[in-house]
């Protein structure tokens, strides 16, 4: 990447693989379990977190020298809550349908530990530009895992992808259902998201042994 120095580029590429916020830092698990029952929700959530984390990181980074350390968590919480609510109000006024889709995610974004985690671990100690890149990188890393989990849960749980019936119709018994295949309703429940996530972590660690802690 010509635009970014090597060090800056790593801020984006690291969270995508070897320092992934979900599989390595174990942040943002709650939302990764809750909303990955279908692919569309996973994608929407990933995009929403991208915006909030990138902008939030910049705001916190700009304020980092004047935030009193005793109340920094509360300050972070207020910044992210205010950001999300303002965006929500503006969407309600100008893009009402979009805001309806997103309103479910508002609470999940405010309480997403990735956001607080990155504010605390990165933005408080780094400049705005690097914080911005860190925000983009971490939310992309978060989004990748969300999309992978959402893909498998929707495919195996409902037999659809983005609402399109890719495996045939389970009631009319067409496609693979004609051969006796059944949707696994268990995939739609949160425990299977955890198991899917576990498999991803297993695959990742067996490919890169350096990630295994003793």
């Amino acid at each position: 990447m010509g635009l970014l120095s090597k060090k800056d580029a790593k801020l984006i590429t690291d969270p995508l693989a070897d320092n992934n916020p979900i599989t390595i830092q174990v942040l943002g698990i709650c939302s990764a379990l809750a909303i990955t029952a279908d692919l569309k929700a996973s994608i929407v959530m990933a995009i929403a977190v991208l915006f909030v984390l990138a902008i939030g990181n910049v705001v916190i980074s700009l304020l980092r020298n004047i935030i009193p350390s005793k109340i920094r968590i509360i300050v972070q919480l207020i910044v992210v809550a205010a950001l999300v609510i303002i965006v929500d109000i503006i969407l309600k006024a100008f893009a009402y349908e979009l805001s309806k889709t997103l309103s479910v995610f508002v609470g999940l974004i405010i309480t997403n530990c990735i956001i607080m985690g990155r504010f605390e671990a990165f933005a408080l100690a780094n400049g705005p530009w690097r914080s911005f890149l860190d925000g983009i990188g971490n939310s992309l890393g978060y989004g990748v895992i969300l999309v992978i989990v959402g893909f498998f849960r929707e495919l195996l749980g409902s037999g659809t992808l983005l609402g399109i019936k890719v495996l045939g119709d389970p009631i009319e018994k067409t496609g693979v259902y004609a051969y006796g295949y059944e949707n696994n309703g268990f995939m739609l429940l949160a425990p299977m998201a955890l198991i899917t996530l576990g498999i991803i972590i297993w695959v990742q660690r067996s490919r890169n042994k350096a990630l295994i802690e003793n």
Partner: protein
Amino acid sequence: MAINTDKNSYTVLFATAMVLIVGALLAFVSSNFKEQITENKRIEKQQNILYALGVNENDETSVEFVSKSIVGEEFKKYITKQYVITGTNAVENPNAYLIDIKKEEAAAKNPSYERKLPLFVGEKDNATFYIIPVRGKGLWDAIWGYVSLDENLVVQGVFFDHAGETPGLGSNIKERFFMDDFKGEHILDGNNTFKGIEVAKGNADPKNNDKTDNEVDAIAGATITGNGLAAMLKKDLQLYLPYLKTLKK
């Protein structure tokens, strides 16, 4: 930086300033856009009522409302009468759709308060439909909707919506595959007593061929949302029953 951010006085000052700034900002944004938001909500309400009546721009699987620009006229065209019902007494009121169901429900907790129930009468293809707003609790937050009945108290269409049900699970109550199941369902049982519509698991009728069983097929993984929806229908349709029974031929 020269500021000592550890001092108590600084902390208090910072907290106060932050609350003032953020509070002012939120108040400003909120009041600035209030008008547009109220207008959007009115449009949405009209779109939802028309949807339950079957006036929409759906294709095979999508949920498409009539477009924003024409919804006002379409509403006037199809919704011929609006009533406010108290007991069996119905009074015509062209602004009945502006009644806030949530506020009415809260006020009705006071036993001396007589609850105002809005009812919309729609005409489409020479048939008359009675559209009832319903409101209840899902798993996380409120759920609500509109149920369109004919005079035999058979469901002709529904629209459901929610504030925060789990995406991909409970949120599917506003999907076609779920809402379409309600079409043709009876809310009375064989003996003409009120039964509502149960959201049933494993009723061995996934295609919903049996319309008189007072059951539709539940959504896997959304038990509490489904139960809440059934409870909502039972609770709110019952309120209209005294009036609706006067219609039955």
